[in-house]
Structure formats: structure tokens, C-alpha cells
């Protein structure tokens, strides 16, 4: 069981090995990657930034919650920060469990909670040279993001 913020590429194969045990029949790997389009705009890359100390604490809490709820200690999460190119993995969640149903549920729990609670932000860079902080739907009220010319 481990959660970390990293400032280098994530090694999905290493995370898969980290959760492997002979008691497990199912391993689920969720890989979030930088997409070339968001809300209809062409994206060329994303910068991720975080309130790092709090983000690491929230990530650890989420992994512990999933471990307790779904009865496995084989959960590892890495979230990358910094400048990412198209196709780069921003997050990898590896979960292993004796049974597949719990593996899917635990993996889904972890990503949904991360999207909701972990103080990480991303600024998308667009093909037209502009960039913009992306607001999720979890704020108390809608926020007009700052738009700047890159």
C-alpha cells in the first residue's frame, strides 16, 4: 500500500509488480493520460501542480480507505506533477485482489476520490498558444478560470 507524487515518468510495469502476490487473481491498472482534446479544444500538453504535502496526505487517506473497504493491501498510486506531453501518464493506480469484482471497485473508488478531493491542478496548453487552468465540478460554486496568452 503506497501513494506518492512523482516528478518523473510513472513506470506502470513496476507498479504492477509491486502489487503482485500469489494470493491475487486479478490485477487492475488504471492509467490516466494526457488527451489531445478537452471540451472541444486542441490540447498540446498539461502542467500539473499540487499542494504537495496535503495532496500526499489525501492520497494516503484514499488508499487506506480503499484498503479497508475492499479488503486488500495491494494498492499503489503514483500521480505525476510537472509538464506532461500528449499521451504521458499523469496517474497510475495499481490494485490487486483475490477476486476481480473487488479489484474493479477498489480501483474505481480510488480514482473517483482523487478527482474529488486531492489538491492537484492542471493547466492545459492549447494549439492556439493559450493556456488555462482546468476547473473540475467539485468547487462550491463555478469558477471562471484565469485565461492567459501563453
Amino acid at each position, binding site marked *: 500500500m503506497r501513494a506518492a507524487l512523482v516528478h518523473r515518468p510513472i513506470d506502470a510495469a513496476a507498479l504492477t509488480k509491486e502489487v503482485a502476490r500469489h494470493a491475487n487473481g486479478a490485477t487492475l491498472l488504471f492509467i*490516466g493520460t494526457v488527451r489531445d482534446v478537452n471540451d472541444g479544444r486542441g490540447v498540446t500538453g498539461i502542467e*500539473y*501542480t*499540487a*499542494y504537495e*504535502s*496535503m*495532496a500526499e*496526505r489525501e492520497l494516503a487517506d484514499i488508499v487506506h480507505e480503499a484498503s479497508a473497504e475492499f479488503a486488500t493491501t495491494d494498492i499503489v498510486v503514483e*500521480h505525476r506533477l510537472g509538464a506532461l506531453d500528449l499521451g504521458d501518464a*499523469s*496517474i497510475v493506480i495499481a490494485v490487486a485482489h483475490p477476486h476481480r469484482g473487488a479489484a474493479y471497485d477498489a480501483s474505481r473508488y480510488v*480514482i473517483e476520490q*482523487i*478527482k*474529488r*478531493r*486531492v*489538491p*492537484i*491542478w*492542471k*493547466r492545459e496548453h492549447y494549439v492556439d498558444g493559450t493556456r488555462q*487552468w*482546468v*476547473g*473540475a*465540478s*467539485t*468547487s*462550491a*460554486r*463555478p*469558477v*471562471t*478560470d*484565469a485565461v*492567459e496568452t501563453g
Partner: protein
Amino acid sequence: MTVTVLLFASYADVLGRGSLSLDLASGATVRDALREIQSMPGAERLPMQPLVAVNERYARVDRVLADGDALAVIPPVAGG
């Protein structure tokens, strides 16, 4: 008492900095601190009721602050 305010992402941009110190009366709440912050130049682009964390945990606006607390104003999160 003094509270450290942490700003991130779009909020750091609109206020032009990532942190600041606030001097507050004893017994001041998160709501009082937000009122101070929202009077600063550029802060009209902050939402009325942003998410906040005190000492790395999400907190409510009626939370009473203590000297030395770290008050983070949290933009909509977008991790994953």
C-alpha cells in the same frame, strides 16, 4: 495572531502570489480570513465561497483559526 495563507493555480495567478500572511483578531474564523483576502486587488475573480483547508485538512468557514495556522484556499481540483 498571524495566519499563513496559501494560494494555488488560478487563485495564485489572480492574486499574483502563492502565499501571504494575515494578521487577524483572536477568535477569527476562516470566514473572517476569506473576507480579508477577498478585499485584495484581483480577488474579485475568486469565488464567494472557495474550498479551504486548515493545516492540510478541508475545513468549514466557521472554523476558528489559531496563531500559526496554514489556511489554504483550494481552487477546483483537477487531478487524475
